[in-house]
């Protein structure tokens, strides 16, 4: 069993990598790279400046990982070191020093270009897509350790991991100097109570929307407006601030305001905002919709099964047929219209914001509708199926009440296939959110995927692909594990040989 699960987990990881790789190759091989600039204001501004445009375009391409871009001065610095006499001389492109540097780079496969208007020289080298893919994976898992920060301006940075207190001395944490983050492991009152900054995921930076922020951070950081509250800074200064101390990371140079508050270089902190992150928003909706749909459809499905052919059953079937037959887009708009005209519920999520319960009602209902239909249909079908099973007949002949038969015999058997789909339903709720989030303008992952594809935020698309794939594959695994808990006959094993113990004749 354990071995089987281990193998399944490994297979899952492989599948996730396969899907992500395919998405990566498709996007970076087949989407024309120039389309990244379609929604780029900066590009539009300098598009009539042929002396600057190539420099901007290539620096972007380097950020996106398409190529290595070396402008003239960077080239010289790399060969002769910064602020040396040779470096200064190298800036003259006719000098022998520059020529030898150029020769070195040409040998490495760089191609040199000269900007006609200014005579400025730069070099680029394409990175093969497979190499980029490998680089993507090698950078994906980031582990924070005390040698991460290499800051020339701060050569005396202490390098240690220690247990220290947080700013207002209310709690202890595993802290670090020399790491990217100041707090490695810390406790607070939000789920899951113990948090870590040691291992993080990196999928590249978001471009052009959320410019320059790592994509994973875009998805996980809080949204909305800042929330200010009194904060005691390490220097003892107390001011109203939105700074969240546990998020602080290294910053090489502090400005004058920051030096009054911080006594070390860990001053790059995220701000406390009033709305959950994109990932959080999607999960909230996914979970709400899931609970809602299961709470409705299982009892209702049971009721329909026990009143098969009666009015309630027929009404339920009509609903199921409606939701399955009508496209999701159509009935979500229909329900939104009903909700807003009859119950004055907001038509879009931002109009009342995430802190008003009313904002959640219509999107949750819209999200739950398709899964209610599916679940209702299957619950009813499994219950009806089990109802005629021999063991149910026998249970009835034992004199058990209908209620007991339903709960103890039929439901438990009918629930097996439903439970198997439970983790998948979570994914369904989040995946279905792509439409719902767009219609209600909910700032979640589903809407982000939509937006990212539109503006060619390629790294973000890959990040979201990775997240959705991981959730989907994980859910299949969880579903399999869950039914082994419910159904004693199912034993997960690769081979059939003799694992079923205790079978005696």
């Amino acid at each position, binding site marked *: 069993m354990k071995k089987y699960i281990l193998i399944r987990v490994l297979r899952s990881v492989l599948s996730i990598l396969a899907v992500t790789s395919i998405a990566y190759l498709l996007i970076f091989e087949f989407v024309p790279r120039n389309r990244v600039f379609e929604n780029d204001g900066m590009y539009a501004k300098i598009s009539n400046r042929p002396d600057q445009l190539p420099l901007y375009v290539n620096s972007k391409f380097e950020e996106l990982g398409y190529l290595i871009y070396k402008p003239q001065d960077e080239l010289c610095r790399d060969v002769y070191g910064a602020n040396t006499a040779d470096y200064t001389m190298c800036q003259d492109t006719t000098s022998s020093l520059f020529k030898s540097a150029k020769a070195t780079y040409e040998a490495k496969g760089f191609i040199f270009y000269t900007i006609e208007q200014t005579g400025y020289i730069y070099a680029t080298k394409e990175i093969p897509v497979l190499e980029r893919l490998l680089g993507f994976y090698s950078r994906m898992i980031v582990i924070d350790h005390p040698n991460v920060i290499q800051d020339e301006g701060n050569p005396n940075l202490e390098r240690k991991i220690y247990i220290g207190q947080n700013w207002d001395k209310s709690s202890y944490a595993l802290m670090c100097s020399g790491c990217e983050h100041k707090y490695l492991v810390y406790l607070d009152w939000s789920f899951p109570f113990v948090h870590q900054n040691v291992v993080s995921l990196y999928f590249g930076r978001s471009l052009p929307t959320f410019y320059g922020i790592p994509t994973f951070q875009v998805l996980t950081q809080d949204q909305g407006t800042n929330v200010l509250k009194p904060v005691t800074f390490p220097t003892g200064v107390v001011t109203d601030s939105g700074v969240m101390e546990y998020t602080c990371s290294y910053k090489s140079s502090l400005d004058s305001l920051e030096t009054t508050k911080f006594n070390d270089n860990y001053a790059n902190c995220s701000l406390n905002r009033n709305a959950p992150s994109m990932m959080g928003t999607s999960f909230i909706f996914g979970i709400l919709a899931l609970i809602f749909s299961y709470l409705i459809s299982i009892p209702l499905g049971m009721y329909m099964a026990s009143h098969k052919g009666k009015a309630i059953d027929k009404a339920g079937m009509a609903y199921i047929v409606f939701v399955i037959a009508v496209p999701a887009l159509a009935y979500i708009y229909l329900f939104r219209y009903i909700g807003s005209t009859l119950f004055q519920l907001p038509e879009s999520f931002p109009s009342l914001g995430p802190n008003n319960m009313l904002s959640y009602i219509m999107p949750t209902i819209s999200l739950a509708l398709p899964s209610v239909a599916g679940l209702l249909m299957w619950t009813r079908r499994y219950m009806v199926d089990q109802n005629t*099973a*021999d*063991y149910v*007949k*026998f*249970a*009835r*002949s*034992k*004199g*058990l*009440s*209908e209620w*007991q038969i339903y709960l*103890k*015999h039929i439901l*438990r*058997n009918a629930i*097996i296939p439903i439970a198997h789909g439970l983790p998948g339903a979570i994914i369904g709720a989040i995946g279905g959110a792509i439409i719902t989030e767009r219609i209600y303008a909910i700032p979640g992952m589903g809407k982000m995927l939509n937006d990212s594809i539109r503006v060619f935020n390629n790294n973000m698309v890959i990040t979201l692909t990775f997240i959705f794939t991981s959730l989907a594959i994980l859910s299949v695994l969880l579903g399999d594990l869950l039914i082994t808990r*419910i*159904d*004693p*006959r199912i034993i997960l094993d690769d081979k059939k040989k003799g694992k*079923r113990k*205790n*079978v*005696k*004749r």
Partner: protein
Amino acid sequence: MERKVILSARDVVVKFRVRDRVLTAIRKVSLDLYEGETLAIVGESGSGKTVLTKTFTGMLENNGFIAGGKIFFEDQDLVQIKNNKAWEKIRGSKIATVFQDPMSSLNPIRTIGTQITEVIIKHQKKNRKEAREIAIDLMDKVGIPNAADRFNEYPFQYSGGMRQRIVIAIALACRPKILICDEPTTALDVTIQAQILELIKNLQKEFGFTTIYITHDLGVVANVAQRVAVMYAGQIVEYGTSHEIFYSPKHPYTWALLSSLPQLGIKGERLYSIPGTPPSLFYEVKGDAFAQRNPYAMNIDFEEEPPFFMITESHFAKTWLLDPRAPRVECPKAIRDLHATIVKIYGKEAL
């Protein structure tokens, strides 16, 4: 011989609604069940054996209903019981049923233990611990080795024979007055069949319940039954002691049924089978239902339904052949030789 009647059915008519049509599955059946006896109901598929016994526990399918008659059990007319609550007091505690297929009679995902104890808790108002003790004792009685260890196992960990033993244990958990065994051994292999029949026999001696066997296996009947009722097309056509039914059957249908015993086949010859098919129960049957397939049928058989003729105090048959005006018909030779054949096959008196 004065014996107490424990259950008595009078003119029971059962009908089913099948797609806007009404099918009469049981046509005026009367039956007395004596306390402590073993009655076998035999007949071909669709003759109404199972449907008849289902009326005793109110287990008719939703489209079926009792259209007439009375069933007396413990000063109560079971036909009058309409709600499930009242039936729950009878089912399992007074009249229990063992079904054909032990493989599917038990809930596959609940432990053997809970499936036995739930019925004890329900009917005898015991707590979980007491019920467990009773259940383990029962498992012992039906021949499960290491009952306490196997209490928490699941049905899939039991073999077919073991499961049927558990089903019997569940059925007997509340010491019912009547045990209905609906083809209890059909799904089991021959060696296990004998064990299960023996088990029921022994438990009957110990607990003193009355047994109704539903079967089309005449071997089972010969083994266990004291009385036999032969059913055809929703009616009992002949009943008597097993000795009478086997050695001096009077109804042509019983002759045909007995002639079909594979044991009577002669090597190299075709096995006997009854020609034709039973009449459709969607229409009213005129005359004797077996007349169409009966080589001894007389004109009256197609005109008028025969009454029961008494042969002995315990033996009745519903055929015009027994009417004094009818010509004398000898029963087939194979049937007359049945006794000798059985002795030859089994090497002993089987009955």
